[in-house]
C-alpha cells in the first residue's frame, strides 16, 4: 500500500476562538501505482488533506502512513526530509521560484533530499516534458503551460513514490490542460508512482478509473455539528 489515512481529524481555530472542523476521515487507501481523482467542492478541505498527507500540516489526530512509514509519528525535520524524498507536489499556481531558471527550479527540488542534485536527471526530466529548449528561461519568460510542465518535472525530480497534484490544470489554458494531465499520468505510470489528483473538473476526473468524492468519506460536521467547512 502506498498511502493509508486512518481516523484523520483536522480543525482550524476561528478568530472568535471556536473550532472549524475541516477533515474527519475514517479510512482512505491508495495502492502503489494507483491513480485517483479526488473531487470535492471548493472549501471542502481538499488542499488541507494534501497538506496533511505531505506532512506540511499536522492533523489533530489520526495516522498518515506512506510506504509503511507513519509520517504523523516522524519529528518535523525527518518529516521534511521524507517529503523531499518520497512525495512530489504539483500546485495549481505552479509555485516556481521566479529568480531561478527552469533547470534551477528542478535542481532546487533535488536540493533538500539526501542525494546530490543530479543535473543530468534534471535535464532528462525537462526534456521529457518538452522543455529542453527552455532550460535557462525563468518562469516569467515561460508560458503558463510551460511553467506547469517545469513544476511537474520538479515534482518528479526525486523519484517520489507518491505524487500529490492540487488542481494542476485549473490555471492552464484549455489547449494545455490535456497535455499536462497526460504528462502527469504517463510519468506516474512510467515510474509506478501513486497519484492523488485533486480537481473540481468532472472532465478531468472522468479520465480516472477511480474517482473519490471527498464529501463521501470526509464528514467534518460530525465533529462539530452545525458547522459547515
Amino acid at each position: 500500500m502506498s498511502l493509508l489515512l486512518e481516523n484523520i481529524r483536522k480543525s482550524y481555530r476561528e478568530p472568535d476562538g471556536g473550532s472549524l472542523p475541516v477533515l474527519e476521515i475514517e479510512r482512505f487507501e491508495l495502492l502503489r501505482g494507483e491513480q485517483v481523482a479526488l473531487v470535492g467542492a471548493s472549501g471542502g478541505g481538499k488542499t488541507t488533506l494534501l497538506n496533511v498527507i505531505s506532512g506540511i500540516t499536522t492533523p489533530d489526530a489520526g495516522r498518515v502512513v506512506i510506504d509503511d512509514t507513519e509520517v504523523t509519528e516522524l519529528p518535523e525535520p525527518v518529516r521534511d526530509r521524507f517529503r523531499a524524498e518520497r512525495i512530489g507536489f504539483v500546485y495549481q499556481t505552479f509555485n516556481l521560484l521566479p529568480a531561478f531558471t527552469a533547470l534551477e527550479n528542478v535542481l532546487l527540488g533535488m536540493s533538500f533530499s539526501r542525494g546530490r542534485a543530479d543535473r543530468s536527471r534534471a535535464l532528462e526530466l525537462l526534456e521529457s516534458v518538452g522543455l529542453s529548449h527552455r532550460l535557462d528561461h525563468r518562469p516569467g519568460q515561460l508560458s503558463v503551460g510551460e511553467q506547469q510542465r517545469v513544476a511537474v518535472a520538479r515534482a518528479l525530480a526525486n523519484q517520489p513514490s507518491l505524487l500529490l497534484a492540487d488542481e494542476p490544470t485549473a490555471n492552464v489554458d484549455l489547449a494545455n490542460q490535456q497535455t499536462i494531465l497526460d504528462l502527469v499520468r504517463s510519468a506516474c505510470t512510467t515510474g509506478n508512482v501513486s497519484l492523488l489528483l485533486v480537481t473540481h473538473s468532472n472532465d478531468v476526473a472522468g479520465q480516472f478509473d477511480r474517482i473519490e468524492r471527498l464529501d463521501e468519506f470526509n464528514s467534518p460536521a460530525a465533529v462539530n455539528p452545525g458547522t459547515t467547512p
Partner: protein
Amino acid sequence: MNLWSIAIKSVKQRALASALTSLSVALGVMLMIVVLVANGMAERMFVQTATGYDLILGPKGSQLELVLTSIYRIGVAGEPLPYRFYRELTSEAGNRIDRAIPITMGDVTRQGAFPIVGTTPDYFVLPYMHEADGTPRKFQFRTRSLDGKHSGEGLIRNPFDATIGAVVARQNNWDVGAKLKLVHGGSDGHVHDEEFTVSGVLAATGTPNDRTVFVHLDGFYMISGHEKPLSEAIAREREFFGNVSEESLQALEAEKAGGHGPVPEAQKEITAILLNIKGEIGEKVLAESRLMSRLNEGVQAQAVKPIVQIDRMMQTLIGPIRTLLIGLTSLIIVVSGIGIFVSIYNSMADRKKEIAIMRALGARRQTVLTVILAESTLLCVVGGLAGFVLAHLLILVASPVVAGYGLVVDPWTFTWGELVLLPALIALASLVGFVPGMTAYRTDVARTLSD
C-alpha cells in the same frame, strides 16, 4: 544546488539593494583599516623612534618636552646645558656608556625651515630605531650626488659638512655638493654668513630624521653668534657647577687682552645628550636607574627614558583618540550591519512565498534559516573584502603623499586588527541575519502557499 548557491541567487535577485548594503560595509571596513594603518604609522613614528636611545639627558623641565625636542624636533629647546657637563659625564661614566651623542638645536634652513641639528658623526653609527622584534634599523646614506658630479668625504666629517634627511633632499632639491645657509632660530630671522656643504644624503627612515639637516657640532659652534658671550658663559658655569674651570679663566684673560682663539668650552652649549648604555639588559637597567637618580636628584639636569615618556603620551593623548576613531569606525560598520538587517528583513515579506515553496519541497526550518544567514554573511564578507581591498588601494595611492611628510607607509603591510575584522564581520552577519532568519524559520507553509 547547495545552500550557498541558493543564497547567492537570492542576493543577485536584489542586486541593487545588496550592492548598496555591501558597499556601506565596505566603506566602514575601509575607514577602519585606514585608521588601523594610521595608528600603526603613529606608533612607529612615536614609539619605535623612541627606541633608538636608552636615555636622554637635558636641562631640568618637562621630561616629555625634552624627548619631543631632542628626538622628534617638536617644540623649542629649553635652557641648554654647558658643554663641560657632557665632557665630565663621558669621562666619569665612560666605562658604562656605549655612546653619548651631544646634540644642539635652534637654527633652521633658509629653504623649507627644516630644523638644524649640530652633532657628532656618532649620531649615524647608532640605530635610529628598533623594530618591534628588536631588530635595529641603521641609517643608510649616500655620499655621492645622483649626477655623479660631487662626492663627500663622509657624513659630517668636516666642520662645515652637512647631512640631510630624505625629505629635505626631495623638497629642497638638494644633493651632495649643495650649499646651504642657516637661519638663526630666534625671532630675528638672521641668516648666518657661514655656508655648509651637503656631504651626505640619508635614505628615508620614516622618522623625523628625514626632515632634519645635520651639521658637525664644531661647525655649529663656529657660526658667529652661536658662542655664548664669555661673561655670561662663566656666570652660567659657576651657577651650574659651583666653580669655573681653569680653561674658562684663561679664555677670559685672553679676551681682556684682545686675543681671539678657538671657541672655549665654556661658550659651547648643548641641547641634549642621547645616551646608550653598555651591557646586558640587567646591567643596563641598573646603570640607567643609577644615572637617572643621580641626575634627577640634582637641580641642573635630568635623565629621561624616551620610551617611557612616549608610551605615556600615547596612552594619555593618542590612545583615547585612537580608541575613539576605532569606536566610530566600528559604529559605521554596525550601522552598515543594520542596513543589511533592514534590507533582508524588508525583503522577507516578498520572499515568504519562496521560503514556503522551499519548505514544501522538503527544506527544513534550519535550512531556510541557514540560507538567510548565508545571505547576510555573503553581504558582510563580500563588503568586508571589498573594504579591505579599497583601504589598501587608498593607502597605495596616498603613500607617496604621506611620504612627503617623512612617513614611510607600506600599503601591503597588514595589521592584526585586520585579521580580527573577518570573524567580527561573520559575527555581525549572524547577528543581523538572525531575526529575518527566524521569520523564515517560523513561516507557516500551508497558510503562505494558500495566500
